[in-house]
C-alpha cells in the first residue's frame, strides 16, 4: 500500500511532492530494516539450535558461547544411537505411520463430506459445519480417561493404530472446513457437465472435483500431517515402548543428562524437519488452514 503511494509520488511533477518523498523513503528503509532485525531475532533460537547441533558436547556447553567452535556430526551420531543408547528410528517410524495413515484417513473421510457441504449441499449444512468445528474446541484432556480405559479393556494400549484413529478425529474438523472452502471454489458448471454425461458420484469426485481442488487438498494434508506429528498428550498417555512416537522420544530429554546439548539440538532439529518441510510447502495456505478456513 505504501509502495503504491511512493510509486505514484515521483511521477508527480510538483516540487513539493519531491520534497515529501525523501523522509518517507528513509522511514520506509528503516522499517524494512526493523522487520529484518525482528525476523532474525525470532529465527535466532533455531539458528543457534542448528549451530549447536554441529558442535561437540564440550563446545556446546561453554559460557560465554563458542560461536566459532569446530563442527562435528557427533551430536547426530549420538542421537541416532551409533555409540549405543536407544535408537530413535522406531519412534520416527511410529510417528510417520501415525501421521501419514491418519492424514490419509482424514482425506478419505473429509473429501466426500466436504462435497456434501459445499457442492451438493445437504440441508442445514452450516449447522453440520459448526458441529465439526465445535468438536475441535473440546479440550483433548476431557476425553482422555475414557479413551484410556477403553483402550485398556480392548487391549489397544501401546498400539499405533489407536493413535491413528485419535489423530483422525483431531484433524477431521480442520480438514472438513478447509476442504469445503476449497471445493466451494470448483465451478458448478464443470460438475453439472460430468453429471449430464452420466458419471456417477465417485467418478465425479475422483476425476473432476479432485484434480481442480488438488492444491487445496495438498495443503489440507500437510496441515493435518503437522498436527499429528506434533501431538504429545495422547501419545504420552496411550503408548509405551512399542508405539512410542517421536515427541514422546523427545520427552526423554526433559531431565538433564550431563553434557547433552548437542544431542538435544540434533534430536529437536531432526524431529522438527518434517514439520518445517511440510509447513513451508503449505505456506500459502497455512493461514486458511490454521483459521479453519475463516481467513483466506
Amino acid at each position, binding site marked *: *500500500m*505504501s509502495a503504491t503511494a511512493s510509486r505514484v509520488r515521483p511521477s508527480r511533477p510538483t516540487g513539493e511532492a519531491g520534497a515529501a518523498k525523501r523522509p518517507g523513503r528513509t522511514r520506509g528503509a528503516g522499517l*524494512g530494516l526493523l*522487520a529484518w532485525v*525482528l*525476523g*532474525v531475532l*525470532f*529465527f535466532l*533460537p533455531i539458528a543457534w*539450535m542448528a549451530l549447536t547441533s554441529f558442535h561437540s558436547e564440550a563446545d556446546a556447553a561453554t*559460557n*560465554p*558461547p563458542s560461536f566459532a567452535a569446530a563442527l562435528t556430526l557427533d551430536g547426530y551420531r549420538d542421537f541416532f544411537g551409533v555409540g549405543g543408547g536407544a535408537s530413535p528410528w522406531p519412534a520416527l517410524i511410529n510417528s510417520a505411520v501415525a501421521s501419514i495413515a491418519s492424514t490419509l484417513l482424514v482425506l478419505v*473421510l473429509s473429501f466426500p463430506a466436504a462435497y*456434501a*457441504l459445499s457442492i451438493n*449441499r*445437504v*440441508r442445514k449444512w*452450516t449447522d453440520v459445519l459448526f*458441529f*465439526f468445528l465445535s*468438536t475441535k474446541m*473440546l*479440550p483433548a*484432556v*476431557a*476425553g*482422555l*480417561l*475414557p*479413551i484410556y480405559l477403553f483402550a485398556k479393556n480392548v487391549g489397544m494400549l501401546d498400539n499405533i493404530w489407536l493413535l491413528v484413529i*485419535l489423530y*483422525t478425529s483431531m484433524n477431521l*474438523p480442520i480438514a472438513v472446513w478447509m476442504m469445503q*472452502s476449497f471445493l*466451494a471454489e470448483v465451478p458448478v458448471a464443470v460438475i453439472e457437465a460430468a453429471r449430464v454425461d452420466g458419471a456417477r*458420484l465417485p467418478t465425479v469426485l475422483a476425476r473432476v472435483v479432485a484434480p481442480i481442488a488438488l492444491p487445496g487438498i495438498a495443503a489440507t494434508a500437510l496441515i493435518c500431517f*503437522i498436527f499429528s506429528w*506434533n501431538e*504429545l*498428550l495422547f501419545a504420552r498417555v496411550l503408548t509405551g515402548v512399542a508405539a512410542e512416537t*517421536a*515427541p514422546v522420544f*523427545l520427552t526423554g530429554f*526433559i531431565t538433564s543428562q550431563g553434557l547433552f*546439548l548437542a544431542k*538435544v*539440538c540434533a*534430536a*529437536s*532439529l531432526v*524431529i*522438527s524437519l518434517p*514439520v*518445517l518441510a511440510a509447513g513451508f510447502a503449505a505456506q500459502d495456505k497455512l493461514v486458511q488452514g*490454521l*483459521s479453519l478456513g475463516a*481467513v483466506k
Partner: protein
Amino acid sequence: MTATTAAPVAAPPEPHVKQPSARLRAWATRAPLLPALIFMIAVTQLPFVATLVISFFDWNALYPKARKFTGVDNYQQVLTDADLRHSVWTTILLTVAVVLVSLVLGLALALLLDRRFPGRGAVRTLLIAPFLVVPVAAALLWKHVLYNPEYGLFNGLLHYVGGPQPEWISDTPLLAVEASLVWQWTPFMMLILLAGLQSRDHQQIEAARVDGASDWQIFVHLTLPHLRRYLELGALLGSIYIVQNFDAVFTITSGGLGTANLPYTVYQSFYQAHENGLASAAGVLVVIGSLIIATFALRVVSSLFREEVSRA
C-alpha cells in the same frame, strides 16, 4: 452458487414430500457426509459422555472394587482443592498473557510485513519458522539451550555485556513457559493479521490519504476497525490452543514451581494419582471453561463465514 445456497431454505415443502424418490434423493445427498459425521460422534462425543458419567463416581483405579456413585462430591472436592484452584488461575494467567503478548507482537510484525521492502518473503519465512518447530522440541530448546543458567544462550549473551546470570526457570517459572509460547504463537497471530491487512480496501485508504489523513489516523480509523474481527479470531483460536497447552508446561517445568495448568493437572491426577473420578470432574470443568471461550469463537468464525458465503 447462490442458487444452490438458497434452494434448501427457499423451498421448505420439498423435503417434506413423502415420495420415496425424494427421500431417497435426500439420503443420497447425505451419504457422502455420513462416514465423517458418524466417525466424529463416535470418537469425540462418546468419550465425553463417559467422562461426564465417571465424574459422578468415586473411583480410584488402584481400588476398582470400591467404585461408587457419589453425586457431585468430586466437583466439590475439585473446586475446594487448593492445588486445583491454583491451576485454574495459572491456566487463565498463562492463556491471557500469551495471547495478548503474541497478538500485539504479531500485529507489529504484520504491519511491518505489509510494507514492500527488499527480502520481504525471506523475513516472512524466518518469522514463520518458530511455529513450525515441534512443540516439545521448542520447549526443550528453551529449557536447555536458552534458559540453562550455566551454559544457556541467554546467560552467555548476558555474560558479554557483564549482566547478571539469572536462573531463568526457577526465578520466573511461569514467565519462562509464557516466553517460549509467545515465541511459537506470535507467527500464528502475524499470519492471521497479515491476511487481514491484505484484505483491506486499498482505494478507501488512498482516498483518505488524498484527503490528508496521516498514517496514524488511517491506522486508528480505518485499519484497526477492519482488523477487529481478525484480532478477535486470532485471540480466540489462540486461546483455544493455549488453554489446552500441555507440551510446554510438561517439558519446561514438569508442572512444578506453580506452573501446573488444568490440562497438566488432569493428566497428573489420573496418570499418576489414578483418581479417575476426580480427573473426570476436572476434565468436565476444563470443558465448561473452553465452551465459554468457544461460544465467542464460534460467533466470530460464523460472522466471517457468513460474510464469505454471501459474497460468493
